[in-house]
């Protein structure tokens, strides 16, 4: 089977899942990414990334409680699998290597 890689938005989503821990479902995931990136994010885009990550085996999902303000629909919590965590570490190593020794990125100015 071909190795699965993380796309940049998928990496943002999976890092957010790690940050949120047990409270990682659609609403807080989207809020966290919006706050940290300063961009408007559509919940549908987050779910598309989560579905891809689930297909790749990097996250798994479980249904939680339903509340009246959700129209009785259950929350879908996402957790990172061991494979997902290993892939994040690999991405971190690769990106760190790529960032090192770039004079254009020194000093924090574009």
């Amino acid at each position, binding site marked *: 089977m071909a190795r699965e890689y993380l796309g940049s938005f998928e990496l943002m989503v999976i890092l957010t899942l790690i940050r949120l821990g047990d409270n990682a479902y*659609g609403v807080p995931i*989207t809020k966290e990414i919006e706050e940290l990136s300063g961009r408007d994010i559509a*919940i*549908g885009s987050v*779910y598309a990334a989560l579905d891809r990550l689930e297909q790749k085996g990097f996250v798994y999902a479980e249904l939680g409680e339903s509340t009246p303000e959700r129209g009785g*629909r259950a929350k879908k919590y996402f957790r990172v*699998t061991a494979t997902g965590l290993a892939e994040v570490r690999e991405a971190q190593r690769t990106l760190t290597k790529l960032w090192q020794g770039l004079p254009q990125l020194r000093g924090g100015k574009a």
Partner: protein
Amino acid sequence: MRSEGPPRTARWLLQHFGSSPSNESVIGDLEESYASGHSALWYWKQVLVTIVVAWFAEIASNKVKTLSILAISCIHLIAVGTVFRYLASGAANPLTSFTFTNLLPYSWWGHNIIFWPVDWLLTWSPLFLISLTAGWTVAASSRGRARAMILTAVMFSCSVLAVPTCRMLLNFPNVPPYFGVRELFVPFQTIVGIVLGGGLRTRPAAISLKKGRTYA
């Protein structure tokens, strides 16, 4: 927190055209966010983006299936065009002529109040039946991805029918209103037929996961 629910039309669209495997959870998340103070415009934007993103994801991961749905849609549109040309070739379609000469008293032919509904019904119902069958076939041949594929058929048909519909609208003042309305109804019933035919085959979204961990 507010008591009134989100825009009903937007929610209906998401329920029926949202093709994400997590569609029910997306709807729940959107309702929760809306209840916490987001605007109706925000809700609409989220719904449209969610439908489009999930649809593209399904198309991208099922290219062969998408091509087969486009082929079904082509056959469907050719059939609709051919049958409409046959039925609308004269002042009354051949089925109407047959009905008034064999089934109904011939003198009724001259009464517009009887003639028009019969003629319209006998022009539209075969076309509607064709579109209904096409929608059903699309849904039946795309198990598990019916919504995305019905949306594909609808979007394809809309794009193909856009040009003749615009032409009909521009030409509308030059033809008798009876023929104009009869022609304009064809694209409308084609799209409605696909959606309803697909809907007959598609069950309401089921939650794909039971409570508890499902994937390790």
